[in-house]
C-alpha cells in the first residue's frame, strides 16, 4: 500500500466486499455460461476488480460512466443491481437494457451508465461529447471513460485525447492496461508501451497506478477527480492490471504462459487486500465468511430474478429502433413552433 488513504477499516471492508461481489458474480457467470444460460460473448473482469471499485467509489451519481464490453464489474460497482445485470445477460426484459444488449451492452440511464460499448475505442469520443454537454450546461458533473490498452492503437483514441485537451473538457480517461489486446501482448501492439506517457504528450496529467491495488486506485482517482472538478481539464489514469481469465469465453489462451498468469494471480487485488487486512488485524475469518455468505445470497437471488424474467415478445422486435412518433414537425418554422 504505497499511498496511505484514510485507511478506514469499514471502508476497506466495503471495498473488499465490492471486489468480491464482482469476483463471485463473474465466477458464477462463467458457470452459467457453460450451462448455456448466458450466451453470446462473455468477457470476464476477474483480476481487474480493483480498478472499477476504486474509481467508482470516488464518483457522484450525476457523473457519467462510459465503459466497454468488459463492464459487468463497472456496472455492479456503479450501483446497478446484480439482478438487473444478470437478467440482462439472460436476455430477459427485466434486464437493465430489456435484454436487448446482453453482456456487452449494459446501460442504465438512471445511473448515468452509458454502456457497454463493444467497439474498441468507440466509447472515447462519446465520453468527450458527454463531457462537453456537462461543461456547456454547467452540470458540475464529470465523465469517466474506461477502456483497455488495446484501444490506444485506435485512431478514435487519439482523436478523443486531442479534443478533450484542446477543448478543456472534464473527463477522466481510465486505461485498464491488462497487457493483452485480446491475445496480442502490449509490446506487440504499441510503439511506446508506457501508455500514460503517450497520453501526457497531448498535454494532460497522466499517471500510472497499480491497478491491482484498490487503495492505490482509489487514492489516484480521488486526486484525479478533484483536479478535474477544480480545473475542468481532462486527466488520464493508466491502471496496470492483468486479466486472469481469457479474453472471452472462446479464448484458449495460447498466447501466454500459465506461469505468468500464476504470478499475477498471486498479486491479485482481492487476495492482497485480504492478506493485508489480516496481517494488520482488521479482518477475521468469520467476517470474511459473512461477506461471502451475503454475496452468495445476492447471487442466488439474482439467478432467481433472471430466470423469472420474461422474454421480450417477438411483436416488440422493432420497438425502440426509433423514438415514438412525434407530432410531425411541419410548418413549424418562423415563430410558429
Amino acid at each position, binding site marked *: 500500500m504505497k499511498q496511505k488513504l484514510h485507511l478506514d477499516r469499514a471502508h476497506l471492508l466495503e471495498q473488499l466486499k465490492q471486489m468480491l461481489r464482482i469476483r463471485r458474480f463473474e465466477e458464477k457467470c462463467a458457470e452459467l455460461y457453460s450451462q448455456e444460460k448466458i450466451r453470446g460473448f462473455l468477457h470476464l473482469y476477474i483480476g481487474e476488480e480493483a480498478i472499477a471499485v476504486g474509481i467508482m467509489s470516488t464518483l457522484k451519481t450525476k457523473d457519467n460512466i462510459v465503459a466497454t464490453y468488459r463492464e459487468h464489474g463497472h456496472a455492479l460497482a456503479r450501483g446497478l443491481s446484480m439482478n438487473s445485470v444478470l437478467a440482462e445477460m439472460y436476455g430477459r426484459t427485466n434486464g437493465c437494457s430489456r435484454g436487448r444488449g446482453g453482456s456487452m451492452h449494459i446501460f442504465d440511464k438512471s445511473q448515468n451508465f452509458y454502456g457497454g460499448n463493444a*467497439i474498441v475505442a468507440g466509447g472515447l469520443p462519446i465520453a468527450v461529447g*458527454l463531457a462537453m454537454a456537462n461543461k456547456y450546461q454547467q452540470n458540475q458533473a464529470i465523465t469517466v471513460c474506461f477502456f483497455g490498452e488495446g484501444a490506444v492503437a485506435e485512431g478514435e483514441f487519439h482523436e478523443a485525447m486531442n479534443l478533450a485537451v484542446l477543448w478543456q473538457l472534464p473527463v477522466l480517461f481510465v486505461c485498464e492496461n491488462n497487457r493483452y489486446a485480446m491475445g496480442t501482448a502490449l509490446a506487440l501492439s504499441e510503439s511506446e508501451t508506457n501508455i500514460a506517457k503517450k497520453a501526457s504528450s497531448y498535454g494532460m496529467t497522466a499517471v500510472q497506478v497499480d491497478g491491482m491495488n484498490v487503495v492505490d486506485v482509489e487514492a489516484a482517482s480521488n486526486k484525479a477527480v478533484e483536479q478535474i472538478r477544480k480545473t475542468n481539464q481532462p486527466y488520464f489514469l493508466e491502471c496496470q492490471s492483468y486479466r486472469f481469465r481469457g479474453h472471452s469465453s472462446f479464448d484458449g489462451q495460447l498466447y501466454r504462459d500459465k506461469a505468468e498468469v500464476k504470478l499475477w494471480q498471486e498479486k491479485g487485488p482481492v487476495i492482497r487486500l485480504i492478506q493485508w487486512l489480516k496481517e494488520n488485524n482488521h479482518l477475521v475469518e468469520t467476517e470474511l465468511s459473512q461477506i461471502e455468505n451475503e454475496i452468495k445470497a445476492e447471487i442466488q437471488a439474482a439467478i432467481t430474478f433472471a430466470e423469472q424474467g420474461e422474454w421480450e415478445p417477438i411483436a416488440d422486435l422493432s420497438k*425502440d429502433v426509433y423514438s415514438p412518433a412525434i407530432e410531425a414537425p411541419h410548418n413549424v*418554422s418562423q415563430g410558429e413552433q
Partner: protein
Amino acid sequence: MTTQTLSYREALRAGIEQALVDDERVFLMGEDVGRYGGCYGVSKGLFERYGDKRIIDTPICEAGFVGVGVGAALGGMRPIIEVMTVNFSLLAMDQIVNSAATLRHMSGGQLNVPLVIRMACGAGLQLAAQHSHSWENFYAHIPGLKVLSPATHNDARHMLIQALADPDPVLIFEHVMLLNTNGEVSEQSDAAMEKAIVRKQGSDVSLLTYGGSLAKAMAAAEQLQAVNISAEVVDLRCLRPLDTKTLLASVKKTHRAIIIDEAWLTGSLAGEISAIIMEQAFWQLDAPVKRIATVEVPIPYPSHLEQAALPQVEQIVAAAKDIMVAH
C-alpha cells in the same frame, strides 16, 4: 405568405441560423465551419454572429467529432454536425452506424440520440474520385437513422429545423451542384420531413427521384410535355424511412416508373424502390420499371467523363419515350 429568392447555400444558412436562435442547446460543429465559413460557404458569417461556443471549428478527425456529437446529444445538447463531404463521413461511419443508430434499441429504449449530421454529396464540380459521391444509400440501409435529401430551396431552408425536432439521429445530404442555384423559399415547410412530394403532376409515367437529380427530372418532364408525354415527378425527400405510400400512389396512377438515382446502380436505392414497386404494384404496371443511375466507376476528374458517368436529362427523356412504347 411571403416568399423570397435565396441561393440553396443561403437557404441552408438561414435554417441553421433559425436553429441557433430558437434553441440554445443547438450548436454547429465541424471542420472549418467557423472562421473559414464552411468548406462550401454554408456557415459563412455565423461564427462572427454566434461565437465560438455555438460555431465550433474542429480538427480534422471525423470519427472523433461525430462521436463527440453523439455524446453531446446523449448529454442533452442538440448538435448539428457538418461533415465536409460524404466521402469523409466514411471515417465517422463507426460512430454513425455503431453508436448513433444502435443506442436507442440496444439500451432497451432508455437512450436516444437527437443528433443532426449534414454533409455535402454528389458530383459535378470536377472534384474527382474522393469528393463526388452519392452514398445516401449507405446510410438509408441502417435502421435507427433517418436520411433526408433536400432537393429544393424550401427544403434546404426548413428540413434542418424538422430534423432537429426529431429525437433520433438524422442525416441531411446537400448536393453540391445545388449550392449556387437560386430558388423560392417560403415561411413554411412543404410537408413533414418524412413525406415524399409530387413536384409535378402527370399521368403517363412516374419519375421517382431525389436530391441533385430532381432538377434533371423536372427538365425532362418539361421536354416530354412537348411530345405529349405527361410525366409525374416525385421527390422522395426522405430516403429512410421511404414514403412508399406516395410513390406507390403515383405508380398506380401512371402505371410506369423510372427511377433516377445519382448513386451507382448495384445495391442502389433505385434497386430498393424497384423492388417495392414489384412487390406492391406489379399488377398495376404497364411496363417494366427502368432505372437510371451513375456508371459504375469512381467519379473521374475531366468534365466530359464526369458528365458521361452521371444521369442526364436526355437519358431520362429517352427512357420515358421508350417506356411508353414498351409492352
